Structure formats: structure tokens, C-alpha cells
């Protein structure tokens, strides 16, 4: 019983903490992008947008690859 409760609580904390960290990271990134755009730093703006596009393409590509090889 204790084992079930402890493992479950740990798993839930890690799961939701992960969501919070990712959401915080996205928020920070959006703030940096908006700041760069508003202050005319288009090099930084373009670089971040480029990195985001590469990251999204990479994320989807990894997902598709995992599907293709049957891991998911």
C-alpha cells in the first residue's frame, strides 16, 4: 500500500513539475522573442524563431521516427 502511494505521488509530482517547467520555458522564450521584436533586435528575433522552427520540426520528426520503428 505504502509502495503504491509513494510511487504514485512521486510519479505525479514529476509529471506535473515537468509540465510546469516546460510551460515556464515557453513563457520565458515568448517574452524574449517579444522583447527582441519590440526593441528592434531582429537578428536575435530571427535566430530564436529559426531555432523554434528547427526544434518543432525535430520534435515531430523524432515522433514520426519512433512511430516508424515501432517504439510508439
Amino acid at each position: 500500500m505504502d509502495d503504491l502511494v509513494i510511487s504514485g505521488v512521486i510519479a505525479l509530482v514529476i509529471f506535473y513539475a515537468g509540465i510546469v517547467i516546460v510551460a515556464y520555458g515557453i513563457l520565458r522564450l515568448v517574452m524574449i522573442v517579444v522583447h527582441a521584436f519590440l526593441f528592434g533586435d531582429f537578428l536575435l528575433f530571427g535566430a530564436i524563431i529559426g531555432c523554434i522552427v528547427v526544434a518543432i520540426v525535430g520534435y515531430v520528426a523524432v515522433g514520426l521516427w519512433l512511430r516508424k520503428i515501432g517504439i510508439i
Partner: protein
Amino acid sequence: MAHVLVSPLNWGLGHATRDIPIIQALLAHGHDVTIAASGNALSVLRQEFPACPHIEFPDYPVSYSSGHLFVPKFCASFPFMFHGVVREHATLEALLSKDRYDLVISDNRLGVFSSKVPSVFVSHQLHYHLPLLYWPAEILAIPVNQYLHERYDRIIVPDNPPGPLSLAGKLSRPDTDVAQERVFYSGILSGTRQIACTQDLDYLVVISGPEPQRTFFEKILLARLGDLGGSGVVLLGSPQKPEKITRVGDWTCISYVSTEEKAELMNRAKCVICRSGYTTMMELAELGKDRALLVPTPGQTEQEYLSGYYEQMGWYHSVEQRHLDLADDLLMTRHYKGFPVMSKTSENTKRLYDELLAGYLE
């Protein structure tokens, strides 16, 4: 003779109805069976096995969304589900301390296991399918599943082994050594049996599943039935509404029928229009239906995966609810061949008992 506790999850009737053949096999071998369930699942099993003692055994709520927010809402419900799992585990332990049981059979109830009594888990999902966007969560679910599967002595998968006859596709594929060691592929298990009758119904429309999608599906289908020729029956799947039968031309609309009446109608139908829930798929396989139109419940990733898998295998035509064009899609169903021939429930149940259950009970 042994005493077995059978406890199905009450998320739809699917878990309860696929346990009917298992309970029948246990009773046929002279064992005592106690049913621990709640809601409609308990009602169905009480009706089917009035002589078996039953225990009201609450499970946990599930959050169904009205659209593609299913995954986030489902994730948000994890703490409530976890609390439900812990509670049901405590309830089971209290139950086991009062009465003698020789085996516990849990149908997808994650808290129904014990270290004191051999425990068997019934599930067709050894792997959870999520939309591509959530692939990290699909990977994270693998070790979580492993942790849960370790709690059980064996896992009964009501499917054929992975391969060309697998009805659940990747869902019933073991990802871990734990699942690989414990899994027993029983083949399909369905409470619906083939009966000798004439196929005098052109269509049987089964409108089922959680609200509000059930109502959306009902509205979409009822508005388009006029486009079809032939005769048919529409089952609205609304047990809460008063029983009502409406006739329009050669079509009959029934608010709710018993499982026996539904089985008879399925036997009589030439073509079935339904959701792609796994239990319904086992019914199609059991009855050897070669024509069906599958419309997965929007946002239910398991149904969406299964219908896509069947479409890909050339077994049944599947269409998203929002793209449904009833007349055209029904024409398309003629190009599909239905499930391949496979062993039926009676044979599977016998093998399941002889090769697995008897080891704990005799």
C-alpha cells in the same frame, strides 16, 4: 472448489461484458464467483449472473471532453484517478481480510491486486496510444505500465498474439519484459454469441459512448438516415431516457435495449454502423461481420487508433465524425473484407481456463 473475485471497471459496459465468458467458465467448473463492480457494469453482471454474490465497489471517474481536449483533461484527472486507485486497493485488502478468495481478476482496475492472493489483470492495452504531439507521454507511459503490471501474476489480453490476426494492433503489444513474461493472449472474449437467424436488417446503427459525443453522433446520424434505402434499427444507447420506440418508414429508433436484444439485432444486421470501441470490435469479430462503418469518438485516442488500424488493414471503413457522409461512406464499406477468420470466444475461454485459470484454482 475455489472462490474468485471478478472486478471490472465501470467505464462503459465493455469491461463487464467481456468478463461474462470468463465468469461463465468459472461457474461451469463449479467455482464460486463474487462480482465487485459499480454502476452499469454491476447492473449488467447482476442481470447476467443473478445467483452470484455481488459487492458495490466504486471505481474512479474519467474525464471525457467534447473534442480534442481529451488528452489535457485526462492528464488533469490523474490525481483523482490515483486517489481512486489507492481507495479501491484499500477496499480490496479489507475485503480479502474478511472472506477467503483464491483468485482476484481485475478488468482494468489498477488498484485491484493483492500480494496475498494471486491476482490477474485483464486488459487489451499493454501500450497506450496518444496523438503524435504527445509522443513523450506515450514513452513515459511504458515504465508506468511496467510498474502496474508488476503487481499482477498474469495479464490476460483478450486479443490474438501480435501478428496478422491482432485486433488491437500495437495496443496489445508488450513493451517490457514484465509484460512479456506475464501476458496470456486469450483471443477475443465477447459476451455476444452468434445465433442462427436471417440477416433481415440492412443496417444496425449503434449510438453509444460518453456524452456529449453520443448526442452529437445521434444528431448527425438521424439527420442523414433519410439518404439511405433499406431497413434498419437505430439504438440510441440512452438507458436514462424512458424506453421509447419510434418508427419512420422501414427504420426503427429504440432508446435502449438489453444486451440480449442488442446481440440479436447485431446477428440480424448486414451492416453495422458504430463507434470503434474494442469490445464492439470483438463483437464484430465474434459474429463474423464483414460490413461495418466505424466512426471513432472524437478525442478518444484508442478508438481513433483502432479505426485507423482497421482502415489500413483493409478490414473496415472508418471515417471521422466531422467528415461523415453516410451514403457515400456506406458505399465504401463494400470494399472492405471484415476481420480475418479467428478462433471464437467459446474456444478461447476453454483454452484460457485450461492453460491459465485452472492453475490457480485446481
